[in-house]
């Protein structure tokens, strides 16, 4: 349906190609979280890979720093309609994490659990092959608390609610059980290029 009188301020052609449907480009870095930004102290920080109430591997902050870190540059897309190009992150890929922990994936589904109680589901198929990492640095600096520091999941090819801030636990689960937003009307997978924003979107 054409909107009478709407012309729009189109992005440049190069930018337009990189923008998924319904998104617009921003140069700042909006913050979306459920409540207050939690203060996660590094001396208490822990990341655990779990399955069926058993800890398969876990790292303190110091131990995590010793894992092989990888830089990535990626475009990120938030379901609230903004996208940001060429964001620079550094962290440990999920492949490297599983390898370092000696973890053979017991299932193909993962629920990320966070220090603020947030959860989100991401199948392993959307993480392997350097598609996802536990990110601890942004633009060359330690990741700010409001953006998920000390460490967040980063899955840039899915809407950003999947890139869980303040991650604490990487839990293998038996099926693709919905997380926090997925239970509240948002899409189970969240691919921005297919515009999978809400539950019944294709």
């Amino acid at each position: 349906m054409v909107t009478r009188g709407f012309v729009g301020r189109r992005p440049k052609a190069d930018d337009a190609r990189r923008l998924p449907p319904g998104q617009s480009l921003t140069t700042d870095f909006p913050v979306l979280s459920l409540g207050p930004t939690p203060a996660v102290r590094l001396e208490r920080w822990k990341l655990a890979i779990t399955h069926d109430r058993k800890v398969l591997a876990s790292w303190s902050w110091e131990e995590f720093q010793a894992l092989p870190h990888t830089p990535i540059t990626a475009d990120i897309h938030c379901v609230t309609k903004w996208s940001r190009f060429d964001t620079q992150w550094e962290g440990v890929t999920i492949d490297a994490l599983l390898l370092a922990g000696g973890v053979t994936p017991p299932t193909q589904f993962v629920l990320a659990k966070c220090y603020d109680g947030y959860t989100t589901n991401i199948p392993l198929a959307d993480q392997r092959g350097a598609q996802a990492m536990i990110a601890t640095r942004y633009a060359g600096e330690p990741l700010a608390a409001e953006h998920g520091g000390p460490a967040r999941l980063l899955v840039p090819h899915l809407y950003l609610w999947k890139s869980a801030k303040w991650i604490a636990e990487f839990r293998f689960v038996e099926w693709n059980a919905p997380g926090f937003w997925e239970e509240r009307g948002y899409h189970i997978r969240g691919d921005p290029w297919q515009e999978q924003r809400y539950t019944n979107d294709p």
Partner: protein
Amino acid sequence: MIWQTAVIERIEQTTPRVKSFFFRVALEHHDAGQHVDIRLTAQDGYQAQRSYSIASAPGAELLELVVEHLPEGEVSSFLHDVAVVGDEIEMRGPIGGHFVWRQSDEGPLLLIAGGSGIAPLMAMLRTRPATDTLLIYSTRTWEDVIFRDELLAMDARVRVIFLITRELPRRAEDFGTRIDRGVLGSVMKQWGCAPRHVYVCGATSFVEAAATALVDEGIPAAIIKAERYGGA
């Protein structure tokens, strides 16, 4: 969720930079705090989408959106400068299952808004919460207070405190400062209630400051719901 046609029935200038748009649209029943997506389409098929919080009460005849005119805003500029009564846009929703309050959630209720962040909290206030309610509303000037007359006429169980950051406050109970722990502590002490639910909405820096003040004042993080917009 399908796109529906929404017709602009009324437009009101509520402050120098803010207009309210009232739409006739057949969305499903919404809860106070939810938002809608709108979509505009140009002749050649180019589209722009934005999300806006619903300011009208659940069950209201028309759906009200509060739109602040952003100088570079593609959609807000269209709505402010081009759209007129009778125009149709596409809308879908209601959306959001976290930043919501229903009468059955009870209270006391503490609402904290910055600027146009009042919109989803207004939907809560307009349900006439049957519980003690405190609204702390921060704007730059008295003229920037959206819904000012309606807020000043709220019934006795709703206490409204304005934080006016760029001029002197007009009323004795208001403050001429930004939100911080000192202001929050003093306002809450006068209120005398322990909130059961806290909702904070505004620009990111405002929400961060308010949420930090709340946590420092001993409010459990688990009862604080926040909605942020704009850049960090």
